[in-house]
């Protein structure tokens, strides 16, 4: 399909791929740190109001309004306050924060400085997943530059406000992207999520008020002060301001990270010339996961939906972390779900029984069905196991402390709802109907 999707002026990705885009020099030439200058002349409360007005919503998965989150931090607490940046990008299908960290880390650092000043934070920890060696090198170099330039340190751009920023690398645990597990990990412990409430804004890092924000969320903050909150809000919908990054992967011609408007639909992302450029000849879309592997899967007839929090909620799925995974008609749905289920079994932290026991159980059942050993009753059992972790339709959180349980159960519920016939065919035929090509044949390894 030709390009009909509404073009946008990129904000976050504008400099990606340009020479030296990750340096302070490049960022300053593009007007970098001017927003911080403006913010430093404002009252902290007024900064939070601007962010509220901008309708910026968290880009890590839950889509919580950022300004509102900031306003939950108690103003009169005698304890120090902290900002923790969530760069534990590990949700399968999600790879956008990596590009910010590699190609324009100062945009995030400026967001950090604005947020810290607004919140009364003097120490910020940037937590990156352990596997991000190169992104960590780029980010650390940017932090060092910011210290040298007087953006971090005893004063922020000459203002008498101390701000320190430290980079911490995780060590391989998806669960640490859950905000309270991230705080546990930052405290030097294994990543076991905490019961909420209390929420981190009140009792967070070291028992102190803490805001946890995603990398892209913070990178979006400077634009609010450059353009003005109203202009930023107007780019999006009534409830979700600005632009957002989406990550397109799977069986499309041109996978990648694209900055899109909140009105861009899944179909446009997959087929438009500006984005995915459709499927290879002879192939059709069978299924699309719209927001990282935890998001309920959609069928080919459900793609005319904007990739925005509210619109996807109507379809009983979620915008999540922006990870769009496309599966074509040569892809086996049992095999796909088995692979997704294995991920959650591997990454379950082991704290809550339904998740610890349920995620490997799902995996064993799916393997049995995929390998042609499935029996009548296995599908109902699978549905039962998923419901024991988190019932469907969801009624708030499932039966576990954190959302990993829901994340593990939702794919199962949604695959069974939309592709039950494929599961039944496996059991009836005592084999995978796709034979030894469950993934179709894509790329060089076909």
């Amino acid at each position, binding site marked *: 399909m030709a390009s009909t999707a509404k073009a946008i002026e990129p904000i976050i990705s504008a400099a990606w791929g340009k020479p030296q885009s990750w340096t302070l020099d490049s960022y300053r030439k593009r007007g970098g740190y001017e927003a911080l200058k403006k913010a430093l002349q404002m009252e902290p409360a007024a900064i939070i109001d601007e962010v509220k007005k901008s309708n910026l919503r968290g880009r890590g998965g839950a889509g919580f309004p950022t300004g509102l989150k900031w306003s939950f931090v108690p103003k009169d607490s005698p304890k120090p306050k902290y900002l923790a940046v969530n760069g534990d990008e590990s949700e399968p*299908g999600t*790879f956008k924060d990596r590009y910010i960290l590699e190609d324009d880390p100062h945009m995030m650092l400026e967001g950090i400085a604005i947020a810290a000043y607004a919140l009364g934070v003097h120490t910020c920890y940037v937590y990156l997943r352990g596997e991000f060696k190169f992104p960590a090198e780029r980010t650390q170099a940017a932090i060092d530059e910011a210290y040298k330039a007087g953006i971090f340190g005893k004063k922020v751009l000459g203002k008498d406000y101390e701000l320190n920023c430290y980079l911490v690398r995780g*060590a391989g645990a998806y669960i640490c992207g859950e905000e309270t597990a991230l705080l546990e990990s930052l405290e*030097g412990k*294994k*990543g076991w999520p905490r019961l909420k409430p209390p929420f981190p804004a009140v009792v967070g890092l070291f028992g102190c008020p803490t805001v946890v924000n995603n990398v892209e969320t913070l990178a979006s903050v400077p634009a609010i002060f450059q353009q003005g909150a109203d202009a930023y809000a107007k780019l999006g919908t009534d409830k979700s301001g600005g632009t957002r990054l989406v990550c397109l*992967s799977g069986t499309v011609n041109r996978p990648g990270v694209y900055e899109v408007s909140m009105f861009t639909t899944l179909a446009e992302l997959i087929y438009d010339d500006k984005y995915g450029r459709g499927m290879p000849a002879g192939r059709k879309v069978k299924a699309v996961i719209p927001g990282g592997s935890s998001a309920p899967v959609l069928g080919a007839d459900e793609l005319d939906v904007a990739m925005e929090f509210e619109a996807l909620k109507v379809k009983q799925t979620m915008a999540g972390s922006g990870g769009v995974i496309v599966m074509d008609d040569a892809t086996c749905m049992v095999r*796909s779900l088995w692979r997704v289920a294995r991920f959650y079994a591997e990454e379950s932290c082991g704290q809550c029984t339904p998740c610890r026991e349920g995620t490997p159980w799902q995996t064993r059942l799916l393997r049995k069905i995929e390998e042609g050993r499935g029996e009548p009753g296995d599908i109902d059992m699978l549905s039962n196991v998923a419901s024991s972790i988190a019932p469907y339709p969801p009624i708030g959180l499932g039966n576990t402390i954190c959302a990993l349980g829901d994340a593990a159960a939702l794919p199962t519920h949604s695959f069974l709802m939309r592709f039950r016939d494929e599961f039944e065919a496996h059991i009836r035929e005592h084999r995978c109907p796709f034979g030894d090509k469950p993934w179709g044949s894509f790329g060089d390894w076909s």
Partner: protein
Amino acid sequence: MAEPLFTSEEEQKKFDAGIAEIISHYPPDRKSAGMLPALRLLQEIKGWLPPEGLRLVAKHLEVTPERAMEVASFYVMYHLKKPGKYVIDVCTNLSCSLWGAEKMLAYLEEKLGLKAGEANEKFTLRETECLASCGTAPCLQINEDHHESLTQAKLDAILAKLS
């Protein structure tokens, strides 16, 4: 007597300076928060986390060695056994599998004579979870260096450089 943990003055110096820097990032009564960076530092120096190293880290952070072990055994990037010289982590999650990751892993298993999860002196081969390279699938990491959009020819060229 057992061999000393650090076999050169340089190693000892790197550890001491690193630990001091790490501890300085946290409130004075929260030294134990430095556990993840401290274990990473130890692994960078020794290539893995030997038991006497865990005890040393625990001592510096003023916690019990069991606490260090608890953290070291929770996160998959820490090596509690000495790995091969090159640790190869192959992503086989959904987006990579759609671009042939399972076949790439099978190719590596045959080429290296190792099953995923096995190791020899030179290589540790592991199946790993999503590495955030879904748009440039399939991908793998070798000692934390990222390699993306892999074809068989590209992979062969990378392996040929590992001595």
